[in-house]
């Protein structure tokens, strides 16, 4: 029976292999060709927009009669979709 500790030691053992000397330069050439730098995903803006939408819908439900509320809800949905589209286009 093979000693499991020997197997684990073999699995942990690292070799000394390193990439070739020009590896970094090749990667960076491709990165620079890709410029501009990636954008930070605007998680906070997106979360704030969703929260604002939720608050608006809740307030609308309390303040307006059913028909007016439905119209207001549609407006909020359209505004939210526009915000999401803006975020997605920023990422593209």
């Amino acid at each position, binding site marked *: 029976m*093979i000693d499991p500790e*020997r197997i684990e030691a073999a*699995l942990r053992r690292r*070799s000394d292999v*390193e990439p070739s000397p020009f*590896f970094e330069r090749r990667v960076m050439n491709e990165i620079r060709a890709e410029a501009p730098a990636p954008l930070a995903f605007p998680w906070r803006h997106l979360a704030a927009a969703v929260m604002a939408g939720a608050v608006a819908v809740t307030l609308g439900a309390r303040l307006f009669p059913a028909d007016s509320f439905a119209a207001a809800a549609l407006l909020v949905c359209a505004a939210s979709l526009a915000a999401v589209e803006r975020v997605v286009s920023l990422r593209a």
Partner: protein
Amino acid sequence: MTSDEEDVAAILGGDADRFERIVGRYKGPLMQLAMRFTGDRSTAEEMAHVAFVSCYRALGTWRRKSAFSTWLFSIALNVYRSHLRRAQPSIPLDEELQSETSLEETISEQQEAAIVRRAVAFLPAKYRDPLVTFYFLDADLAETAAILRLPESTVKTRLRRGRHLLAQRLERQLSRGKR
């Protein structure tokens, strides 16, 4: 703020050249990790290259919930796995193994490690990936689960079964060597 976080902030701020520091810090580990999946040095280098470019493209999605290295290794593993889906793993050549060498006949720890790694490379992916991540990256169970995006209980089970399967295969190789 760690040096990784500082560099990522600078890159997201428009200084793409700061990515060179990240490449410098992680080129060795990513290359060695790639060598666990393929024995071919130039293929491993190409895989590491693709992993760094993928990391750069996705940099804005790192949410700092996990360490940068955990996130980077997770991306690298995805790149390596998708590469292996297209190409079967080749027999690792890094230690210039003789294919008929058995575990019993090994003359050095280095050769023994190479035999074990070769056996790991040919395990089914669902056992190979947890074994490589857990042992090579010296990750704990939680970190392995985060890198592989699997529940800890699943990783635990796969590690146990993977070790068992690996031992069986090495045992078979050993008994073949005795004949």
